[in-house]
């Protein structure tokens, strides 16, 4: 059953559940952070509206820096601004930042320990018709491997707002990952959120499988758990929004309780959130696992639904993974 303590969207299981692009929460969280702290500044590389940096830049034009299409310079300019006491948020599509400017993020932000937040919009396969060039499905891997970098993947726009705001309060580098297309609202303003603390969204008395998900995959995982419950298979669903630092206690706890784990993410299986979960479990509490994500392939054009389904992260793909792991 849904965990009442999580105060989730009451209409979560309805067919007409409200859907909002996760990236919208970035604009709102950034605005909130900016209203509270005058040192919060925003930079963007010619994608001000679609990254929702515009929510901030309209209110605080004097604290917004237009970079043009220069993601590499953007990362280093932000580092320089942080050296002057600013709290810079840099935004682009994840494919370009942290995709194109990885070394600048590593050296001038993380190696320097600069208080810079990197916001990657249009991440995941669900980007849709733009095709494989624009679908960042390697970004979790390349950011979580950098020392000092925090990595957060919110499951909906409400959580994205909280994550963005929360990152402004922590003086460390952050990577915040957002999807493009409308995504069902899972949480509410009242739902708990803390960086580094995973949330158990669905609980069960005698769970057979723990589904650990992040980003838009959290909603699909909840739908799968609901359907499987009717078939007599009970699943825990953990919203593992912080990939780094990972909430090892919660991850180990659900693995211990269910004895089987399936991870779900819109990302390459290699190096992603599931790999990070495996790194924790293999050391502390090894269980059989299945990894739902993109299997060493590039994306292509299509609708959000077509792509998520085709690459195995849809309802049917997750269901099959749950059944596979039970049969191991």
């Amino acid at each position, binding site marked *: 059953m849904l965990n009442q303590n999580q105060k989730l969207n009451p209409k979560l299981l309805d067919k007409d559940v409200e859907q909002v692009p996760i990236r919208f929460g970035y604009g709102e969280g950034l605005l909130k952070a900016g209203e509270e702290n005058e040192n919060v*500044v925003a930079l963007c590389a010619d994608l001000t509206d679609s990254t929702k940096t515009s929510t901030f830049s309209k209110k605080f034009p*004097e*604290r917004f*820096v237009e*970079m*043009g299409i*220069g993601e*590499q*310079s953007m*990362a*280093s*300019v*932000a*580092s*320089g*601004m*942080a*050296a*002057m*006491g*600013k709290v*810079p948020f840099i935004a682009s599509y994840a494919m370009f930042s942290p995709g194109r400017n990885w*070394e*600048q993020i590593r*050296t*001038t932000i993380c*190696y*320097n*320990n600069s208080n810079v937040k990197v916001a990657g919009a249009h991440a995941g396969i669900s980007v849709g018709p733009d095709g494989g060039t624009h679908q960042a499905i390697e970004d979790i891997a390349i950011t979580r491997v950098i020392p000092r970098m925090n990595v957060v993947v919110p499951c909906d726009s409400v959580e994205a707002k909280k994550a963005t705001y929360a990152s402004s309060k922590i003086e460390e580098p952050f990577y915040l990952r957002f999807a493009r297309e409308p995504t069902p609202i899972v949480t509410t303003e009242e739902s708990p959120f803390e960086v580094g603390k995973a949330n158990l969204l669905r609980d069960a008395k005698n769970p057979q499988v723990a589904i650990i998900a992040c980003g838009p995959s959290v909603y699909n995982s909840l739908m799968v758990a609901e359907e499987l419950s009717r078939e007599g298979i009970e699943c825990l669903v953990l919203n593992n929004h912080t990939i780094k630092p990972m909430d090892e206690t919660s991850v180990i706890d659900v693995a211990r309780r269910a004895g089987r784990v399936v991870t779900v993410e819109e990302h390459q299986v290699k190096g992603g959130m599931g790999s990070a979960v495996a790194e924790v479990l293999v050391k502390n509490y090894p269980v059989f696992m299945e990894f739902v994500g993109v299997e060493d392939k590039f994306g292509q054009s299509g609708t959000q639904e077509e792509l998520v389904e085709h690459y195995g992260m849809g309802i049917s793909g997750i269901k099959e993974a749950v059944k596979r792991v039970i049969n191991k």
Partner: protein
Amino acid sequence: MANLLDEKVKFLEEKANDIRRSIVEMLLEAGSGHSAGPLGMADIFTLLYFHVLKHDPKNLGWPERDRVILSNGHICPVLYAAMAHSGYFPVEELKTLRKFGSRLQGHPHREWLPGIETSSGPLGSGLSQAVGMAIGNRMNDGQSDDKWFYCLMGDGELDCGQVWEAVMMAGRDKLHNIIGIIDRNNIQIDGFTEDIMPLDSLRDKFESFNWHVLEVDGHNFESVNDAIGQAQAMFSKPSVIIAHTIPGKGVEFMERKFEWHGKSPNANEAKEALNQLRTLGGKIKSEHE
């Protein structure tokens, strides 16, 4: 900024010679590192740390200090030597360069050695950071001229596209607090810059991006000092000083040799180098006596 009196020039020449000797000694001790660039930039670093900069080696967090952003981190021996000789840390510590646990990392790290403004090594990102600092400073203090951002770059790193992203932006935003100094020594690891990837006309390139361009002999203290003064007087755009230098300056067998870009001297070579530098010291004295 003050003009240079003859006596100060003599003082700077002697300091520069001390710094060159330190560079050779520390590279010998380290057994690896870059020789040509640090020796070539010794005069400019001496001028900065002993005459130009508003800084206080005993008060590293002073908010009003000028910022030195070393973009081409591989010439850090000259930065370390200038810092040590101007009082940031004991000169003796220079011998720990590149050693395990040393604050003097092979490429500079701002946390390992306080007093360094940014970590660098991968080329081409210094100017972007100077741009960020100048923009942040403008947001904090308006159009004030309370501090300058000196970004030191190698000429080879101008191959990097990111440099031109920053050049374009500094020109757009008229960041006049930025003074770029390019070590125009014409060499990079694989050979001469004009063979590898031609950079000329550097003046035209920067001017077309709305920069104020000055060209000087990078070994002439008065010329470099005058150029910095002129750059500070330019209120409508950023300035860049193209400093023509001789790589390996002061050590005859290293001068103008790209082979000396990325290697350190062995014991015999260092002995010869130090001998030459001592003789040069004698020359300087005689010129001014």
